[in-house]
């Protein structure tokens, strides 16, 4: 589903964020990405999101070579990749419902279809009763769940999460992780960046360890 083929990324500043990274994630797999800050986790995710392009090597997602995607095709590609951010990236000028509906509106779904799917997604994350609230009125954990609802509402085949539990206490983290696990169980390929070692151990999933831009670990937690 996701394949990195000798991928290197060097920024214009000269900093080499990734050096010849090779790995493959199967369809329906759930993988954690870990490493100290600056190890290249974010860069790796940005390459999958096409927020950055590799300096060398190739990235394949769902059989497509991302190097071959023109900038005009990027929006359509991104609709198949859900993203969850540490800082949620919610818009506070609109309701929870409208936040979650955004990807569907962009993809051109009818209002009826949008309403149905948004409620299904909000129901899944347990926030159906807050659809008309402004996200600023919600707690951190709830905001993150809105972010997850927005990421999955379009039924993407790949879900990326960058430190999704970074600001949450362990109990809320567990709830969020449980959500990810449920999505994974219905076949969504999931990649989560996290430096929370306790969490990684508890989840007992495959972990890719990054250090100085290279993969230094591949397997369940060491």
């Amino acid at each position: 589903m996701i394949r990195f083929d000798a991928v290197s990324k060097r920024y214009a500043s000269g900093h080499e964020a990734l050096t010849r990274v090779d790995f493959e994630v199967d369809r329906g797999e759930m993988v954690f990405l870990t490493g100290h800050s600056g190890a290249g986790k974010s860069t790796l995710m940005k390459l999958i999101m096409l927020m950055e392009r590799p300096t060398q090597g190739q990235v394949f997602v769902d059989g497509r070579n991302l190097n071959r995607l023109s900038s005009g095709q990027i929006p359509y590609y991104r609709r198949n990749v859900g993203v969850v951010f540490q800082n949620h990236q919610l818009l506070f000028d609109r309701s929870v419902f409208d936040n979650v509906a955004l990807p569907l509106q962009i993809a051109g779904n009818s209002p009826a279809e949008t309403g149905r799917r948004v409620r299904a997604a909000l129901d899944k994350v347990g926030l159906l009763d807050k659809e008309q609230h402004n996200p600023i009125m919600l707690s951190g954990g709830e905001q993150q769940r809105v972010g997850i609802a927005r990421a999955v509402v379009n039924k993407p085949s790949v879900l990326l999460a960058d430190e999704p539990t970074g600001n949450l206490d362990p109990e809320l983290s567990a709830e969020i992780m449980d959500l990810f696990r449920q999505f994974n169980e219905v076949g969504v390929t999931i990649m989560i960046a996290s430096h929370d070692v306790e969490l990684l151990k508890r989840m007992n999933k495959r972990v890719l360890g990054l250090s100085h831009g290279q993969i230094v670990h591949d397997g369940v937690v060491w």
Partner: protein
Amino acid sequence: MKPVRPNRNRNDQTPPPARPQGAVQSKSRLGDRFDAWMGHHSTTAIDSLLRLLRTPLQSLMTWLVVAIAVALPAVLYIALANIQNIGYSWQDSSQISVFLNKKVPDNQAEALRQRWAERTDIAAITYVSPAAALEEFKTASGLGQIVDSLDENPLPGVLLVQPSLSGSTPAGLEALEKVLRDEALVADVRIDMQWVKRLHQFMAVAQHVVTALAALLALGVLLVVGNTIRLAIENRRDEILVVKLVGGTNAYVRRPFLYTGLWYGLGGGLIALVLLTIGLYWLAGPVAQLADLYQSSFRLQGLGFIHSLQLVLLAGVTGLLGAWIAVGRHLSQIEPQ
């Protein structure tokens, strides 16, 4: 820490089996997509208008700036059109007036008219007898009573000569004038075209000035709208980033700003129209009175429906263009990092 494993083999844990039925990429039918696209256009149009109305003072300032920039050249255009209107009634004086000697009887003048009418360089020729000329003067000048008090008719007979196309060239005109002047019955020949030409020349220059001014002010509208849109883009940076991250195309991101520019333009155009209408209404009375004093039926002409529509649309297009330029310059700089 486990040793480095550069190979790509999976390990320790077997991954769950691939389940293609799980994540079905969402696709909607083409018709639905078109409906949604249209729907997005209308909601975006309404939403951007509501956004403008939510900050009424700020929007009004921009609208007024646009309105003034639109109204100024429009005022000059209207003034010019009205002057031209007056000019039209004088237009046919591109004819030659041949004043006959006094005491030339009507039958001789008529014979001369018939003789000249056969010339190829004369398109038309009419004879105005002294009596008819006096009558016309009485009604046109408003000096009826004074004229009535005259003992005798001071006006000579006049042959009004309309040169044909071949007679209208400067050389042809000169030759014709000489022929007319050499006739024994003729006292004087006047070619009234000179000042009409000057008037036209003046109008052409004025028209160029108005066009140049309009272009300059249109540039001003572009800059004002462009700058306002730039600020709007800056204010909605977060939203733009999120939209781009969840797969919004550039067209989708651009749309609300383009509509905002269109609204600024159309709103400014409408306000300009209101200002013009008020101004014309205010001037129409005095102008009519002035015209009456000169016994003229001249009345101030406004823009008319079609021209008003054109004015508003033109303002709208200019606003749209300003937004387009700003969006093109600033939107590409906002990319998710």
